[in-house]
């Protein structure tokens, strides 16, 4: 049936992928600080999730230092005049290391969970836009071209800046920047281009400054872009995953931007030039093409796998599963199985069964998680 119109599920009823916890005992008796214990699925240790809401006093204990998402209420008694807390705000919540001055209590400014990391207390909001940090690998789209820099949209509060001086110039690293480069700025990146870059610094107002000074960064080609919610991709060690795609599709690269922008593409291998010249020539020739907009030819089978992997990533994020190499591979394999079984009988390519929205997505993610837990069991025998 090409179209399915469902009554809107109230947000609460989207069941979590927790096969082992039955749901009725989770009726939550709310006490003041909303504490309750939730049996997470097998890998995660059961941990107490305490939600704080804005204006709630998290602690008055002076030994805690104040982190993000909180502010210090300098209060001897509860009724302080408004200006008191304003005065306190001048130093802003970013400067984390404000000593817990005596008598003040730390109050949450956002609704979220309390994070206590050796003496530093901060509140991580339930949902917020991506806040860039130095070293983050992000995927971005060029919004505006100015005389010496580009403004890049990275799904965060302010658009990031990419200076002409912080990119690789075609023709290798040695080339010195000449004034004609400014005139040809559009030949490197122009409006709408997608790039992968690293945050090299933060400006005073929090905007990020990017750089693409390495071969793994630069303009993106040969693939498909998708956007997931910013909190979906958790900062991990490697954000560029290479998957061995099935049906002879070859290798597929998945670039998971920390800002929720994901790029799935065919693996671009530096074909050795026919003459087999020296490495610099190879690297030189590669760097000529880094700013070309022309895709290589990609086989239909690869395109189908790229689409499937894109769906897997989208399903994992919508079901709040951490996207890393191991789990993505497992979910991808279970998606392949799903297509062979042909969930609703006809296994034909055009059955649309690979479209992993809603219920189908949940089944695939669930199967993937089981595959991972069983692999862990086999591998370590120790659930950790």
């Amino acid at each position, binding site marked *: 049936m090409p179209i399915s119109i469902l009554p809107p599920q109230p947000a609460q009823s989207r069941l979590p992928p927790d096969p082992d916890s039955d749901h009725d005992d989770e009726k939550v008796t709310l006490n003041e600080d909303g504490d309750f214990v939730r049996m997470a699925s097998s890998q995660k240790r059961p941990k107490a999730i305490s939600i704080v809401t804005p204006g709630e006093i998290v602690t008055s204990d002076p030994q805690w230092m104040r982190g993000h998402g909180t502010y210090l209420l300098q209060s001897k008694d509860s009724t302080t005049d408004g200006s008191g807390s304003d005065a306190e705000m001048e130093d802003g919540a970013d400067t984390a290391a404000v000593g817990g001055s005596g008598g003040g209590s730390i109050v949450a400014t956002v609704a979220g969970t309390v994070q206590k990391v050796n003496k530093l207390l901060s509140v991580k909001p339930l949902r917020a836009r991506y806040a860039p940090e130095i070293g983050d690998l992000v995927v971005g789209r060029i919004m505006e*071209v*100015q*005389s010496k820099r580009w403004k890049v949209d990275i799904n965060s509060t302010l658009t990031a800046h990419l200076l002409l001086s912080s990119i690789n110039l075609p023709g290798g690293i040695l080339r010195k920047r000449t*004034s004609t480069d400014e*005139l*040809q700025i*559009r030949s490197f990146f122009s409006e709408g281009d997608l790039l992968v870059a690293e945050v090299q610094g933060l400006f005073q107002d929090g905007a990020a400054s990017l750089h693409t000074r390495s071969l793994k960064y630069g303009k993106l080609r040969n693939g498909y872009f998708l956007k997931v919610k910013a909190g979906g991709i958790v900062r991990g060690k490697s954000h560029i995953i290479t998957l061995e795609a099935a049906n002879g599709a070859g290798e597929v690269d998945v670039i998971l931007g920390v800002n929720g922008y994901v790029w799935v593409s065919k693996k671009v291998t530096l074909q050795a030039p026919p003459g087999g010249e020296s490495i610099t020539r190879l690297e030189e020739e590669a760097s000529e093409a880094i700013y070309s907009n022309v895709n290589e030819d990609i086989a239909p089978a690869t395109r189908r796998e790229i689409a499937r992997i894109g769906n897997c990533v989208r399903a994992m994020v919508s079901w709040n599963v951490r996207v890393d190499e191991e789990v993505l591979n497992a979910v991808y394999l279970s998606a392949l199985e799903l297509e062979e079984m042909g969930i609703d009988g006809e296994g034909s390519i055009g059955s649309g069964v690979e479209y992993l929205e809603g219920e189908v997505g949940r089944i695939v993610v669930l199967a993937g998680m089981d595959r991972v837990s069983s692999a862990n069991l086999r591998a370590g025998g120790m659930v950790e």
Partner: protein
Amino acid sequence: MSQPHPLPPIALPGQPLAPSPPYTSSTGTHIHTQNPTSTIITASIAGIPHLHPDMSISITRPSPSSSSSSTSHHRPLLLLPEVTSTVLARVTRLNLRQATVEIFAMQAGAEEMGVCEHTFQGIIRGQDVRATEKDRVKILESFRVGDVISLGDQSNYYLSTASNSLGVVVAHSGGELRVTDAGDPLHPINWRQMACARTGVVEDRKVAKPI
């Protein structure tokens, strides 16, 4: 398909002119791929098609000389400044690093200079004036002939006056001392200076070599 070789006397937009493998398309024409196998050159403006020796076909619009007919005045063939076209512009703003000019006439390749319908804004950066750095002189009213070197950003074209034939053509004295004697025409002395006939005051300009 019309006959490939003898071009019709008059071509209208969309009219197929010739198969593209032997011929190439230049101004006023457009390559249209009907189907993957055959691509043809079609006219994209109404005018007279010409077959050039280098097997390229171009279409020129008859631009009647402005004097004879009152209704359609002189229109340059070129509607927009393009890279490497030389333009006639008037300096509108000066600051330390660049001069903002208003382009009001342009000329592409061999044809003569045509006044354009709408004036475009251009910028001449410090490093594009001449090889050696010249500080800016605050004379507002001086004409400059420059050539367009890049499409620049949103609203500006980047001009350069590096070559000898480019530079100030008509200038008026700035009258630093007293405002009253400003505005006299200057005539060039050498490629760096111009002098005012009446007061003999010498002012710095990047002067175009008088043709």
